């Protein structure tokens, strides 16, 4: 009897398991269909915006973002918003202040933040669950054609193109799915006092000058010439941001040329391009111009240390500057210089959007509207971009003082990929396992092999080129010689 009961329950369990499987699969398929619907409806909406009233519920957020007036429209809206952010350091301070200001206009909107340290990886996994919150920075792993599966369209590209910088970063088929939080300029953070004490008066313009200066710092001061932040992992991906505009001066390089280029990492005669960027790192490490033990670096403590002058230089985007300034008693010692590569006698600096705020496609209509209002507030009224040392998103606003060293340096904003190739870079990037800008393993490999002498730089480059070519072939990309 007992046996019978047991087998019965087991059978029941199997059945339940089976049904749960099927139900989960149906739910995922239904989610797909709803998302397709939403993107459909949104495209209808955008076509309809010109003629019809924008505030109808059906229209969702797509039509209301650009016309909504903060503090006047929808002030009685009720919603609970959850925001996911990579800026774990600002949640209790800066973001708490934003919430207060926003709630002064929208008292019934509750907002909570959740910080994620290993942002891109964790966020990608959480996106698949659908129930992650309402606003997040769109992770770089999401291909453009997949944006509509996870994010609600916020506005049409044509509406915002004249108003916002970098707005096409997360746009697909004329729909904007993410509003940039701030714009980064790619350069090098350094401690002015240390560089001055070492006797350096002119900032380096080429890789050779840069390496020479680091050697001088090592000889003249007690500071660590270049701090890699190896152990933090994600900090190493900063190096990938220089291979485009900074190293080539070509706005089309990253999204249009790189996916089609044959052996893009190979050395070129002019001493620029991606090869030169990683070469700086390899040389700095092999000439012992970095910290003694990269395996035990610590991200939080690097901030006060560069502020004190214990560290001379770090290669990080402009977002890092305010953090380094606020970490100690010498904010004025922190400077920001253009990346030391010269292209045909001129220096360039890439400018690009940081994470873009996206709205969960599965949030309720009220939540979507409230989220759009909060994003608008963050972008236009919070002053986030300026305060964080970035390029303001609203066109025509003042640039922060940190960028003063960039006078005479051309800012290069990456052009969007060619129509029909929106996903190509991301696909090749993932398939090659280089994962530029999203994973640090390839940069870590440079540091490791330079440190231990296990691999030559040119061998690594050969490997990367082979991986890139293989990924290009897999994705049937045309390779231009």
């Amino acid at each position, binding site marked *: 009897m007992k046996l019978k009961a*047991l087998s019965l329950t087991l059978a029941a369990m199997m059945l339940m398991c089976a049904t749960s499987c099927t139900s989960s699969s149906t739910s995922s398929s239904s989610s797909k269909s709803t998302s397709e619907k939403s993107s459909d409806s949104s495209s209808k909406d955008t076509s309809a915006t010109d003629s019809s009233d924008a505030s109808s519920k059906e229209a969702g957020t797509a039509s209301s973002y650009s016309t909504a007036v903060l503090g006047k429209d929808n002030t009685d809206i009720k919603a609970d918003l959850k925001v996911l952010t990579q800026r774990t350091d600002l949640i209790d301070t800066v973001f708490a202040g934003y919430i207060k200001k926003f709630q002064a206009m929208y008292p019934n909107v509750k907002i909570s933040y959740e910080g994620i340290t290993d942002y891109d990886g964790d966020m990608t*996994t959480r996106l698949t669950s659908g129930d992650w919150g309402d606003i997040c920075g769109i992770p770089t792993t999401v291909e453009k054609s997949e944006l509509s599966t996870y994010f609600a369209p916020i506005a049409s590209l044509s509406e915002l193109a004249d108003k916002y910088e970098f707005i096409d970063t997360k746009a697909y088929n004329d729909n904007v799915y993410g509003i940039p939080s701030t714009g980064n300029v790619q350069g090098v953070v350094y401690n002015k006092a240390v560089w001055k004490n070492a006797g350096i008066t002119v900032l380096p313009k080429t890789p050779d000058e840069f390496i020479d200066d680091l050697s001088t710092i090592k000889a003249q001061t007690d500071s660590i010439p270049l701090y890699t932040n190896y152990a933090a992992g994600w900090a190493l991906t900063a190096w990938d941001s220089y291979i485009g505009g900074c190293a080539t001066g070509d706005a089309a390089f990253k999204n249009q040329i790189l996916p089609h280029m044959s052996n893009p990492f190979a050395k070129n005669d002019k001493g620029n391009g991606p090869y030169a960027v990683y070469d700086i790192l390899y040389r700095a490490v092999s000439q012992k111009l970095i910290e003694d033990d990269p395996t035990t670096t610590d991200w939080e403590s690097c901030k006060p240390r560069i502020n004190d002058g214990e560290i001379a230089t770090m290669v990080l985007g402009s977002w890092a500057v305010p953090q380094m300034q606020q970490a100690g008693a010498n904010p004025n010692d922190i400077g920001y210089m253009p990346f030391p590569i010269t292209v045909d006698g001129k220096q360039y600096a890439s400018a690009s959007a940081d994470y873009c705020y996206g709205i969960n496609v599965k949030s309720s209509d009220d939540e979507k509207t409230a989220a759009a209002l909060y994003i608008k507030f963050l972008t236009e009224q919070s002053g986030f971009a300026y305060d964080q040392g970035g390029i303001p998103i609203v066109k025509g606003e003042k640039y922060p003082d940190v960028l003063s060293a960039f006078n005479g340096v051309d800012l290069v904003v990456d052009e969007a990929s060619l129509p029909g190739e929106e996903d190509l870079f991301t696909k090749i990037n993932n398939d090659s396992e280089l994962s530029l800008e999203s994973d640090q393993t390839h940069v870590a490999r440079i540091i490791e092999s330079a440190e231990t002498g296990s691999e030559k730089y040119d061998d690594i480059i050969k490997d990367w080129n082979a991986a890139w070519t293989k990924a290009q072939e897999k994705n049937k990309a045309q390779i231009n010689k």
Partner: protein
Amino acid sequence: MPHNFTNQKRLRGGMGAMTMKNQQRIVTAVFLAVPLILLFMFTYFPFFKMIQFSFYDMKYIGKRTWVGLQNYKDIFSRDDCFDALKLSLYYMVGSVVQLSLALLFAALLTEKTKGSKFFRGALYFPCLIGGIAVGFIFKFFFTHGFILDTLLSFVGFDIDSLPYWLKDTKINNWMLVATSVWRYMGQNMVLFIGAMASVDTTQYEAAEIDGANRWQKFFYITLPSIKTIVILNLILAISGSLSAFEMPYVVTGGGFGTSTYFVLMNTLAHKNQKVGLACAMAVFLLTLILIVTGIQKYVEYRMSDDYSKKHQSKRGAKI
């Protein structure tokens, strides 16, 4: 009383209307349901999904394409997978050391040693700390000029002549293995102590009368009596060393040649978004572990009493 019973019956409605046996069945089902649901939801369902995923070229998000056995072929054509597996050898050596240490401490602490309770607790303590916390402890422990170097300088080593424990590729894997041994040894020890406590004490008394010394008592009485537990722990330790993850992931992040199979799998799945390949790697590892366990089971069987009895009786029959 019967009157009362019918009252209850009425109050309880449907349930009371059933026979005792049916009630028993329902209660059994309800009690079984919870663990079984959990088991299926968190073990079998993900497991079958994983096998399914291993035949696809897929990311966490986006389209999936069926590629058949391509992912499995890739495992064998990639160098990094087998390099990572080689690292398991370090951990296997470590697991032998770990088990010997555990046996030693267990043998010492089952005897009436002074403060044996304290030492049992102290040696078991590392198992109670989360793996991530242990990782961070050792990250600082091994940092140049920090705890380990300071301790060594107290006993006369020159700090400048000490190696970089995590950077030097000759020793960094041994350092990570040592942390693993530190963390898991207590667990083996407690199991051994438990097994040793159940050994019949009259055997020791008899051996003592025959004049056996401590080594003899250990090798001829204790060890044979706890053989099953030792082998079980060996299987666990070997499969554990094939799937070493926490220490290299937290302490070095898999850098400087410490990327074990699991760390590599994690990078491929979560960083490079090659979920299909990572799933295939997991299935491959599972097969490996099953094979290793199978071999160990066979050896265990060869060593067991049943086998020797059968063998002897056969031999006897021939004669």
